[in-house]
């Protein structure tokens, strides 16, 4: 099944990005999680017709992508697969909100289109922030950061286990699904009946795997507790990173930088 393999390859590629070594990668994961949160909250706190004010925030992904040496086209391609639900819901804005909000020359633009554009830009920024966070931090480190920020250990362990076995199980599912497709001549045989027995088998094998893993854990003295030790410290550079970016975000949130710059320039050449 091509789509599964593609999805897995994408996942692996994003996962491997976290192995890069850069000033951003070396920062404590907590700093990056916090900055990403501030960023997203600032973005979503804008009113629905806010569009121009959102653009200055592109400075964050641009700078981080550059400093951390992430592949910009890959990130852009991933962002381009924007959640279709958002677009569908967003498309209704121009339908319901026809009041003219601004004129571009002789072109009247309705509030609906402005808010639709705003939704798209928000999506790009928030979704991009999530990808960048994973790309510069890695899933494991994000989980550990969240745990140190107060997430219960049970849930942290769950996330780590899930992530570990995603790679094993997506490959297994991909193989099973490929076998089914190869024998489903002309799309027949891809219905619910074959699906459910395929999923059923996959589920039983998964269950047995869980039993074997449990065995392996017991064999190494597992008694229910996870001992993790990780030296990471929230030092000066982390503090600078968090304070610097947060200040910038809040400044941008309070001052419409696009407007300011635009005024400056149009003022120069009136």
């Amino acid at each position: 099944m091509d789509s599964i393999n593609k999805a897995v390859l994408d996942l692996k590629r994003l996962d491997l990005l976290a192995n890069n070594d850069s000033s951003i990668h070396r920062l404590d994961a907590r700093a990056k999680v916090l900055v990403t949160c501030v960023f997203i909250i600032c973005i979503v706190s804008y009113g629905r017709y806010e569009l121009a004010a959102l653009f200055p925030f592109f400075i964050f992904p641009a700078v981080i992508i550059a400093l951390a040496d992430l592949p910009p086209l890959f990130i852009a391609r991933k962002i381009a697969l924007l959640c279709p639900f958002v677009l569908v819901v967003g498309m209704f804005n121009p339908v319901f909100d026809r009041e003219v909000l601004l004129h571009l020359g002789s072109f009247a633009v309705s509030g609906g289109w402005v808010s639709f554009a705003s939704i798209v830009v928000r999506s790009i920024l928030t979704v991009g922030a999530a990808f960048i966070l994973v790309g510069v931090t890695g899933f494991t480190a994000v989980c550990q950061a969240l745990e140190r920020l107060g997430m219960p250990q049970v849930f942290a362990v769950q996330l780590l286990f899930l992530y570990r076995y995603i790679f094993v199980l997506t490959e297994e599912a991909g193989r099973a699904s490929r076998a089914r497709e190869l024998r489903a001549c002309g799309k027949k045989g891809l219905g619910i009946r074959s699906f459910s027995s395929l999923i059923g088998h996959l589920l039983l094998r998964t269950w047995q795997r869980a039993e074997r893993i449990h065995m392996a854990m017991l064999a190494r003295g597992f008694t229910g507790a996870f001992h993790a030790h990780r030296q990471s410290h929230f030092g000066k550079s982390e503090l600078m990173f968090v304070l610097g970016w947060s200040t910038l975000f809040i400044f941008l949130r309070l001052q419409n930088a696009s407007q300011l710059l635009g005024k400056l320039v149009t003022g120069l050449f009136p």
Partner: protein
Amino acid sequence: MHMADALLSPAVGGAMCAVSAGTIAYCSRKVRQELDDKKVPLMGVLGAFLFAAQMINFTIPATGSSGHIGGGMLLTILLGPYAAFLTIASVLVVQSLFFADGGLLALGCNIFNMGFFPAFLAYPFIYKKMVGNNPNQTRLTLAIMVSAIVCLQLGPFGVVLETVLSGVSSLPFSTFVLLMQPIHLAIGAVEGLVTVAVVTFVFKARPEILQGALEAGPTGSRPVRTVVVAFLVAALFIGGIVSLFASKNPDGLEWAIAKVTGKEELEASKQGLHGVLADLQQKTAFLPDYSFRKQPEPKKSETVPVQKDEAGKVGTSAAGLVGTMIVLALAFLSGLVLKKRK
């Protein structure tokens, strides 16, 4: 039907994050109390299983289009409510980070919409009641069908409420509900069918798995009832706050900032930096006889309408447009420069 950051207001997103985080904390404690260390790897691999299973498509009967399993009810039946909630939540976390399904702030909403209803409503009040203590095929089928349909009505309804309360989308509540609910009636029926088929398969192959899950679930319905009541209260409370926000202050953070900085209106800051820059502009607007001036003004900004009070904040003048272009260029340029320097 993943909820997305782009459609959320901070008040709604934050409230739902708090609710989901609370439920995760509660379930974590419950799972730890169960002291069943077999469940540790089981939850992990079943989460990975759900993740993988959602990538396999099947042909939806009578339509020819393809769909995939949601799996909320399936996991709840296999793991019991607490472990299932955590597992579903963990899958959503990975999806939001790696596949952009929604976004990070929307996680709270998504975890609630897709985890809470199967684990804490459908499972204790529909599934367990209908299946009883000795499951047979008819009971299982009925219970799962009803549960799946109920979950897939409540989940999307949650999406509708969250979207409408956030106010980023202009979709009116009634239209949105009419769009979402009937579609999800069909989706729920298909989800039910698939879940029945998978559970039946497991039931035939390894009946002890289902039996074990039935016993391992919450023993009495009392703890679950407490949870549900607590959440209804919390939801009402939060709903009240949110509606207060929504009515008086369409923009929660701005309101909060205004409170903090003590300024009535953020526009007031124009006297600050805006003012300084405006002064600067006038001083730097040199070359008054420059030929540009003689040209007709193609898109100078006096056309901004004032019918909407939000329009004032829109930032839609030509200045805004020009500035936007510059800002974008600057952002990417800075990226490029930083990259070159390395």
